[in-house]
């Protein structure tokens, strides 16, 4: 795999459940937390990359 987006998706998908399990006790809220964290990691990286592209690209 050589796609930067692919690496980022795999990384976010593996990190999110760990933090969810550390910060939430029940399965339902943990799943919601993991989903929000996954979205924040991927979305934040996309937004930041666009900002950097527009500023310095």
């Amino acid at each position, binding site marked *: *795999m*050589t796609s930067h987006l692919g*690496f980022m998706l*795999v*990384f976010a998908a*593996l*990190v999110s*459940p*760990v933090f*969810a*399990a*550390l910060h939430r*006790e029940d*399965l339902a809220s943990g799943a919601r937390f993991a989903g929000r964290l996954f979205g924040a990691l991927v979305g934040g990286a996309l937004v930041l990359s666009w900002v950097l592209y527009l500023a310095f690209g």
Partner: protein
Amino acid sequence: MALPKTPISNASMPAPARPSVAVTCALAWVFPGVGHLVQGQAGKALVFGATLLPMYAFGLWFGGQLFPFEGGEPLVLLASGAQWMMGAVRLLAGWAGLGHGDVVAASYEYGNTFLIVAGLLNVLVMFDASDLARGRKAS
């Protein structure tokens, strides 16, 4: 004559024996999730095992390097320490001859990142297991 229905008090029941803080931390270091397993949190143990092990495997697959302990290179030393936080997984990967590091591969730095972050996340897991063993968190 019917006996009165009285609830059984939890206070009269002996608490299940749980490993000490040191043993829990050691087990959590040796293998991700085992610290939580011995503290009665099988679900969390499954999550940690099912995420940190693949993360380490992905790191090796992406061409990441298992760094040696070298005092002369502070960043290499820190990276090595983080990777060793995966305990037996790091040991087995070293014994299996994995992690030579494909420096020219496009995914080399990604692999290193996966290996290092997996170890650092396991440190957080060890702290959480320690809190469970100390009774700071409900198990």
